[in-house]
């Protein structure tokens, strides 16, 4: 029963430190192994002002085995799956130690948002974007933060559906160019995502042809 005592103590430690802006709550009072945690996006990053909610499953062998954590909030980040929220972080796997707490793990996630590790990616498409065009990546990540993590501009956006191309950092001109050739917009975005192409220089005919080939498949 040491697990229950430890979790209760960890909850208290989080409450005692409101400065950290971290929360930790049970999903239901009757189940101590399922929690939700949250933290603020690190300032000076595209995640600034976002609140990121993390689903936490505490295993039977906790704290000798790591908790299972994944983002509930959609995050655009090389080490987080943009679809499932799965996280690639060593301390949640083999580098786990019983001295690490749920709070320190959440702080590590915050640090991960601060400094991505694109060479050990969870989401290859996002990691490519990050490595190829940092500026465009930052824009997309900030857009996701606004849309999904309740960032500043969320209110300004009025809940309108975001443009699919913007959502994946694909240049509008590029999409329009293929649209003018008679292809469907969602099909174009799907192919460009699959090929990892966000923008193109106008004289790169090889790549244009490859995209068209895929579109004609």
């Amino acid at each position: 029963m040491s697990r229950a005592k430890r979790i209760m103590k960890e909850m208290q430690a989080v409450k005692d430190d409101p400065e950290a802006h971290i929360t930790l709550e049970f999903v239901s009072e009757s189940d101590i192994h399922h929690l939700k945690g949250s933290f603020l996006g690190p300032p000076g990053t595209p995640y600034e002002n976002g609140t990121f909610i993390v689903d936490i499953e505490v295993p039977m062998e906790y704290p000798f085995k790591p908790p299972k954590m994944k983002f509930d909030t959609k995050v655009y980040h090389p080490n987080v799956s943009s679809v499932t929220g799965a996280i690639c972080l060593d301390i949640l796997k083999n580098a786990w130690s019983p001295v690490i707490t749920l709070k320190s793990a959440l702080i590590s996630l915050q640090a991960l948002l601060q400094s991505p590790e694109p060479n050990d990616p969870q989401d290859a498409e996002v990691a490519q974007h990050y490595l190829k065009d940092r500026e465009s990546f930052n824009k997309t990540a900030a857009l996701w933060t606004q849309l999904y993590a309740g960032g500043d501009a969320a209110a300004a956006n009025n809940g309108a559906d975001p443009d699919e191309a913007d959502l994946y950092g694909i240049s509008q001109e590029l999409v329009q160019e293929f649209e003018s050739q008679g292809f469907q917009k969602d099909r174009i975005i799907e192919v460009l995502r699959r090929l990892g192409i966000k923008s193109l220089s106008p004289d790169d005919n090889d790549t244009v042809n490859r995209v068209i080939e895929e579109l004609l498949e």
Partner: protein
Amino acid sequence: MTQMKSKTTPITSDYIDDPNYEKVHNPIFDSENISSFTLTEITDHKTDSGVLSQDSEFEIEDFAYSDDEFVYDDEENNETYDSMLSQPIKQITKKEMSEGSVPNLNYEVLTTQNIFKNMLSRLDHLQPVFNIPREDILLLMQHYDWNEERLLENWTERMDELLVEIGVSQKTSAVATSLEKKAENPDISGVKTKRGIAFKQSFECIICCEDKDTQTFSLECGHEYCIDCYRHYIENKLHNGNVITCMDCSLALKNIDIDTVMGHDSSKKLMASSIKSFIQKHNKNYKWCPYADCKCIIHLKDTSSLAEYTRLHFSPFVKCDAEHRFCFNCGFETHAPADCNVTNAWVKKAKKESENLNWVMSHTKECPKCGVNIEKDGGCNHMKCSSCKYEFCWICEGDWAPHGKSFYQCTLYTNDEKSKKKESEDLSKIMKKYTFYYRVFNEHEISAKLDWKLGQTIGSKVRALQEKMDVSWIEGQFLTDSIKILNEAVEDLSELLQIKDPEQIMKNKLEFYNKSGYVENRMYALMECGRDLLCKGICKPTD
């Protein structure tokens, strides 16, 4: 037919077909399968007799070669047998043949304990170089996956760093690693504690958060936790073979610490898992015996001869201490006369084809009336059950009558009938052929396993006989040896069959004759022995 039989019957001893069989047939026992009941009787397992008797083998012969459905005429057989093995067998050139046969494999049979002992003796060797305690060298070797060269290289380059990195010694200024930990245990840094177990009253353990009178454990770093938590922690780490460190810093636990905390020699477990990962990393030279529960490891020091084996289409068969034979190259059980590529191709095909069962599902249907399996043989959807003559539509499985005049088209079915039919016929042919070979293969595999089991059972039964009954030691030993020798001779013979060059086969004609003659003699000798036991009334035939 006979041609195919010689190709596909590598191991089984189908001596019943042998005209000489009559000569050794004992007239007293009017049984078609004397060997079967002899063996059954010796094993004396009534319930097992069905499995252990040779009966099953006769049945195999029956269905494999005389079931009309599975017989191929010779013409088709010749052509399809070659295309069956998708990897073409490279012809061996004359020059290659004249270069002689494959070199002997020089290997040793080991266990993880053996390997660990070898490592320890290496360690004694290295001690003068390192000039640190043995236990510490062990940590270094464990960390470097027992790779001496890499360790020595790093050791000469940056001795002190290495000792800190691997956790043999502490950083000179012991500082807690993260801010957070410092906040939780503000008084840890800088404190030097004694390594080992202590007893503390009202100790608050930060891992389990209990406050209790308890034994604790800590290394020099002073990261102290209750003994229960430490045990739990170590228990969870024993199986991956890595160096176990303090929960909060990189200081390493030595084997003696592990045993102190766990109260018994758990460090052995850790060492065994470390050796296992060593084997994993050196799997070119070390191979686990693939037999279930066998703990033998084959160590081949010089793997250069393996290329020669591959080139000449031989397979490097090895034998562990438990007499399991397997191929060092591919890890499958001995597969002579097929070489590794052919074996792999076959295994892959078998895997793929089992997925093709889906094909069978989509090309056969049960008759909606009587349930007999019917295969659709082309585009026509007007089906007629061969068993009950019920006529129905393939697509909707309904009675044919309402479909009326549109014999080839259900309202739903619009495809190019001609190409469909051709494709379907081809597939069905391939499937039939595959099924045929698969069944032959499967049954041979089963009978080989049964043979082995039979050998084992006979061995133990003979021992029992020797103890209980009036069978002389020599007689009993003879029976055991005979079976072993027979098995080995059969293996040798099938290894001879690995030779693929027709010319070479002719050259080796005499050897073939000698070997097969030898196998035959052993077989008769064995049957004589069994018959002897029957005559003396030591064993009795059963129904």
